[in-house]
């Protein structure tokens, strides 16, 4: 990792503490069927309608690996610049819970499918590389529902057996902001690859957060606490803030940190002890005898490598080099694959600079306002491109374009039609404009006098009057030129 120092420091009684964070991200593999059965994985189906005999662990049922999920894991590994392990092993992680039908989760313990890799973050202070420890495949559990029936817990097994990738980072993160950047980058890479939809509301992406603190300059890590199953970036950041400060307080009061698992209470904004190290489960991991070691060939890996699309980092580089965008602009445009697709569609036939401004300005404001993803944008890339071309060729002014944009937002209309229907075409005939300006000058003799005697500020007044007289359609550049001439 880079040596860049973080400025996220907690200070108490003249002592400065650094926060060390590692994440275990659970990303649901984008796949139509489960990791070891052919049941569908669609989110939001009626409870227990996507459950096979294997998922419900009926006697004599056996897991059969879903090759597509393996491809997805390898693909993600490639996207994380990670080592792909040609031999990996599925283990059983044994524990009892009502929503774990087998009584064990099939996971990968000592021999994961993907080894060490890295992710580059774009931070305000510059780039920072975060190490990836490993990525492994595992089954998700079902869902226990405690709040429907007053007496009983209900169990929904739709999620039981769905494939997850657990992506474990090295303890390289140093602040809530870095965690934010890391999760967003991971999400972005997986969405580019199509291996995880990254939908945090639907639980497709969640994380266990390991937090420890140490005095600044100290080399040794402090004792860490693991905050389980946090399902939004905001909550992760809040949990880290709380937990880091709690740990600092404990140390400052002369205490020591107990290694434990904690839960984040989103309502009270605090972490609470869930179980201590002594109470930690003994999962009795051992290789699943129902599954042979997973062996993948060089061909398998190479075919996947060939199918990898341009990833965020490469795209950013290309945008900067080819389109002359600033790093800041490039970052905004590449962070989400749909945004980058939209951008590239618009610039196919439009000016890059204008397109960048319109997308990151007006379009983002509109989407934000309507709380929409860019893939659901009310204005298509094609029509936005047309609008930009109307500005570029002088058919309409930027100001008129904004009102055309507003009309487009109500139903993705073709801006050319709007301009035609509403007669918004820019007035660029110098003779017409001259007539118009003469009227303004003749109508305001005292203002002309004042201007000529040195009150140059009044120039804007004349421009405004001329524009007003044109109904806002006059070409502002021409108005400027003609006025300057006439008022000489």
């Amino acid at each position, binding site marked *: 990792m880079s040596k860049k120092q973080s400025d996220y420091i907690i200070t108490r009684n003249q002592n400065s503490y650094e926060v060390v964070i590692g994440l275990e991200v659970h990303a649901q593999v984008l796949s139509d069927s489960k990791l070891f059965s052919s049941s569908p994985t669609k989110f939001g189906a009626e409870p227990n309608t996507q459950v096979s005999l294997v998922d419900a662990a009926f006697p004599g049922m056996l897991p059969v690996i879903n090759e597509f999920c393996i491809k997805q894991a390898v693909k993600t590994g490639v996207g994380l610049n990670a080592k792909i392990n040609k031999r990996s092993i599925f283990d059983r992680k044994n524990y009892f819970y009502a929503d774990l039908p087998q*009584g064990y989760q099939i996971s990968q313990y000592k021999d994961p499918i993907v080894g060490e890799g890295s992710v580059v973050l774009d931070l305000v202070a510059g780039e920072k590389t975060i190490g990836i420890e490993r990525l492994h495949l595992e089954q998700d559990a079902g869902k226990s529902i405690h709040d429907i029936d007053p007496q009983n817990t209900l169990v929904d097994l739709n999620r039981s057996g769905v494939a997850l990738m657990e992506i474990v980072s090295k303890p390289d993160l140093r602040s809530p902001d870095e965690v934010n950047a890391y999760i967003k980058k991971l999400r972005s890479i997986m969405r580019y690859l199509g291996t995880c939809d990254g939908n945090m509301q639907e639980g497709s992406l969640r994380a266990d957060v390991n937090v420890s603190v140490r005095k600044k300059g100290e080399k040794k890590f402090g004792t860490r606490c693991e905050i389980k199953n946090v399902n939004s970036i905001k909550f992760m950041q809040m949990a880290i803030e709380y937990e880091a400060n709690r740990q600092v307080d404990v140390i400052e009061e002369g205490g020591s940190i107990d290694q434990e698992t904690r839960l984040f209470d989103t309502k009270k904004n605090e972490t609470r002890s869930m179980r201590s190290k002594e109470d930690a489960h*003994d999962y009795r991991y051992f290789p699943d005898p*129902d599954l042979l070691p997973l062996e993948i060939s060089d061909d398998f890996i190479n075919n996947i490598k060939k199918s990898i699309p341009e990833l965020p980092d490469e795209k950013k580089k290309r945008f900067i080099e080819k389109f002359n965008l600033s790093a800041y602009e490039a970052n905004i445009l590449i962070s989400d694959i749909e945004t980058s697709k939209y951008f590239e569609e618009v610039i196919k036939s439009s000016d890059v600079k204008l397109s960048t401004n319109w997308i990151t300005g007006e379009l983002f404001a509109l989407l934000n306002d309507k709380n929409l993803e860019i893939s659901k944008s009310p204005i298509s890339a094609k029509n936005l491109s047309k609008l930009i071309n109307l500005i570029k060729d002088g058919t309409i002014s930027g100001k008129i374009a904004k009102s055309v944009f507003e009309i487009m937002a109500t139903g993705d209309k073709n801006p050319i039609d709007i301009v035609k229907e509403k007669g918004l075409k820019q007035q660029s005939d110098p003779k017409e404009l001259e007539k118009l300006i003469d009227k303004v000058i003749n109508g305001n003799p005292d203002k002309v006098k004042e201007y000529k005697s040195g009150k140059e500020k009044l120039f804007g007044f004349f421009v405004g009057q001329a524009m007003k007289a044109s109904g806002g359609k006059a070409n502002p550049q021409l108005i400027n030129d003609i006025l300057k001439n006439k008022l000489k």
Partner: protein
Amino acid sequence: MSNIIDLTLVDLVENIKKKNLSSKEITKAYVERAEKSKKLNTYITEDFNNALKKADNFDNNPDFDKKLPGIPIAVKDLFCTQNLRTTAGSKILENFIPTYESTVTDNIWNEGAILLGKLNCDEFAMGSSNETSFFGNVQSPVAENLVPGGSSGGSASALAAKLTPTTIGTDTGGSIRQPASFTGIVGLKPTYGSCSRYGIVAFASSLDQAGPMTHDVKDCALMFSIISSYDNKDSTSINFKREDYLKKLNKSIKGKKIGIPKEYRVEGMPKEIEDLWQKGINIAKESGAEIIDVSLPNTNYALPTYYIVAPAEASSNLARYDGVKYGFRSKGKNLIDMYEKTRSEGFGNEVKRRIMIGTYVLSSGYYDAYYLKAQKVRRLIKNDFDEVYKKVDAILTPSTPSSAFKIGEKTNNPVSMYLNDIFTVPINLAGLPAISIPAGHDQKGYPLGLQIIGKTFDEQNILNIAYSLEEEINFKNKINDWWI
């Protein structure tokens, strides 16, 4: 013609094909005999009425191209059978009715066979005497109050007593071969990966194999041809070319190199077992086989290794019986309490013992010392066989270190019970095929078996050797219908 029940499977098939017998006649004969044989307690679930109906259906619309046309067969209650209760000999599955069929039984029905019912076995196949079954112990047809062996004790007893013309069992550490030896029948444990485990209630996944139990080697070859198939529903199923084992069956033993492992000459082995073994060696030699002394140096470690690996896998495999989804559930104050009561009441003592052993050997701090070491020893045991098979074609040993014992004789001494499997367990650990054939009687008139161990997927070879020895040995089971 002799009595229907005295015919071998191959003869029954021939008689049905020649229309000398109808499926109904045959099925009725076995049902009637089973009705008179309740004392043996071989059946957990009878399906006689359905069987008779299916026999009628077969006779009305026969298909003589099938390999088991209209043949009634009872199977071990470890195979899941669609719409017919499957208990694995346990209270925890006392009322469990699968909606699906195991691949192995499916293969049998697809060849025209008819299900008679489900046969008693040790609970979750854990036992060597059929005394751990929730549904009570099974009597051996050989003598009253004698165990039939286990865990496929109900299968062995039903076959030896002629309540079914053939049956299938499962063998994790000897559960087909030991009861076969105790009751004077033939039992084959196929190569691991030969028969699908799909739909078989799991005991120890890396060791479990289904296999045929039959009156003679010909029947065994026929049954094995039917049940062995590649199955993509079982990730450990192996896709190799399967033979028509019956068609290729011959008595070619001449020139075969047969290994005699010195480590199987265990201390305290009864003289009659020693004599039986020698008899087998002599017959093989006289038939033209070359006898070669070999060594399997890690044999001693097989039993302790087995009793780490098998319980470890079982402790995890049986975690699914938790009262949540199916099977027996006891009321509890909360989830944990419900688990504890369900499993305490639902499992018998032997199953609990193995779950505890298995949980222990997988626990953190013990895993390396037990489970991991056992896996390494397992590899050494496999290597022993690989080494020996460079020199020989098959290995000949006794099937068990003693003949059948009395009911209750060993129930209080699990280790002496486990020692029963000393000759069979190494074969499961190595994943090899082995067949037990009846070869003689002890002084009390109880049957004794010889075991022929083969190379991986070399079932044809050991069937051929067994076929040859069988003819020379000319074993006659002494069953006097004491229970009727």
